[in-house]
């Protein structure tokens, strides 16, 4: 429940780059990663690891932990992808029989699992690059510039602010319960959690009442508008590397097709 990614995004070394550059770079790689062969996907993942760890200064350990998340999901689905069940008898000699069923390793499944793994790693890297280098306030400003519906931007901004307030509340409540011997067994776990959720809803509405007064007292007129003069500095060195690197990857991606022609 600690919002580590957000605090890294706000302190990382690429924070002052224009968010449109960072997001644009990630989207371009994203599209490339979606359609390119596995080798290029691997190259994208490695290159972005350099950006994230070396240029942005995100601790390698934390980035590794983040990459474990897609990996875990992949591991979880691997059996479903590559294990086949057949009721029609031996497909090939290595199958294992269990009653009338035959389990086998599906060649198609193994290929699929490999493709999915590489794609997931490459695309997750692109997503993480944005998450770890661009603070949420910058993303919101970008969405504003891209003319997303106002109501969505307002809701995102409010949710962002109050997720932190409510998380603090929950953490305090859980700590208080633990200090009074809560969560000792399953029964007390259920009871304590029931209380937490109910209290959380109650406090959510308490916050609503207090904050709406706060908004009104500063002249709320139906819209939540804010102003900011955040300045960004484009970095030529990074721009050159991004563009040059992207072209190399693009060539590598289309090379096999050119060959076929």
């Amino acid at each position, binding site marked *: *429940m600690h919002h580590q*990614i957000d605090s890294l995004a706000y302190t990382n070394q690429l924070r002052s780059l224009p968010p449109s550059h960072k997001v644009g770079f990630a989207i371009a790689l*994203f599209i490339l990663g*979606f*359609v390119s062969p596995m080798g290029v996907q691997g190259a994208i993942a490695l290159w972005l690891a350099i950006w994230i760890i070396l240029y942005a200064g995100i601790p390698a350990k934390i980035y590794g932990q983040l990459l474990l*998340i897609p990996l875990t*999901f992949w*591991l*979880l*689905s*691997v*059996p*479903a*992808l590559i*294990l*086949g069940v*057949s009721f*029609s008898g031996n497909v090939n*000699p*290595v199958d*294992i029989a269990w009653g009338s069923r035959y389990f*086998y*390793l599906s060649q198609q*499944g193994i290929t699929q699992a490999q493709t999915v793994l590489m794609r*997931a*790693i490459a*695309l997750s890297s692109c997503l993480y690059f944005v*998450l770890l280098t661009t603070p949420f306030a910058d*993303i919101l400003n970008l969405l504003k510039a891209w003319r997303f519906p106002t*109501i969505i931007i307002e*809701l*995102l901004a*409010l*949710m*962002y*602010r*109050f*997720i932190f*307030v*409510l*998380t603090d509340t*929950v953490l305090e409540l859980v700590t208080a319960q633990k200090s009074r011997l809560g969560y000792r067994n399953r029964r007390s*776990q*259920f*009871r304590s*959690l*029931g209380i*937490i*959720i*109910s209290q*959380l*809803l109650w406090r*959510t*509405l308490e*916050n*609503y009442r207090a*904050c709406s007064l706060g908004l009104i007292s500063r002249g*709320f007129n*139906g819209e*939540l508008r804010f102003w900011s003069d955040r300045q960004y500095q484009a970095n030529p060195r990074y721009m050159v590397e991004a563009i040059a690197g992207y072209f190399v990857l693009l060539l590598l991606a289309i090379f096999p097709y050119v060959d076929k022609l």
Partner: protein
Amino acid sequence: MNKKSRRLSLLAMAGLSLYWVIGAARPAQAMHIMEGFLPVGWAVFWWMVALPFFVWGVRSLAQITQQNPNLKLLLGLAGAFSFVLSALKIPSVTGSCSHPTGTGLGAVLFGPGVMTVLGSLVLVFQSVLLAHGGITTLGANAFSMAIVGPWVAWGVYRLFESRQQHKIGIFLAAALGNFVTYLVTSIQLALAFPAATGGVMASFGKFAGIFALTQVPLAISEGLLTILVWNWLQAYAQPELQTLKSIKGQEVVQS
């Protein structure tokens, strides 16, 4: 040769089972399809399916908040509440811990249309703050978690509410809201990765089977927990429930 490859195959399967046990130990976000998991075609397809629901939800929210701008704040807080709820760890009846979906409680408290928008935004924050789920798979995840889940929960709740069986209604709404989310996710994975023999149905059986072990007990836990919460709210938070009716009530008028 035959014997050797047979042993290899056994070994591979043992390894896979081990992987799966390790994976199951942290099923935390098993119900979010991770970034990059779906092929282009299916990613786009689910975006296209989810988008109309989302747009419809946003438009009705825009109308509600135009009439009563103060509700924006309430909606933002309700969204934050849903996020924090889904980040809590609840004990599953099997002993492990996992996250509730919160779609059942959310749908009953805020209404299913509102939950479509809030649930989708919660998914955005889950990927932004927790790195769970993704952007290409947002369409697919939103369809299972923010559209099918809440509407099923809402339908079930209304059905039992009309028969004056509130508690069963709440339990089933929460449990089914959670369970259906998992079923839809399994279907989505099965469609994207049909098995070589048996096709989509066989594949669905495999995905559903794998996630069932973690998800069914969790659905029951979420149902039980939601009853506890509901009892409390009924007994001590009547004025608060009235406040929430302001978004739900207006939504019904809209639709």
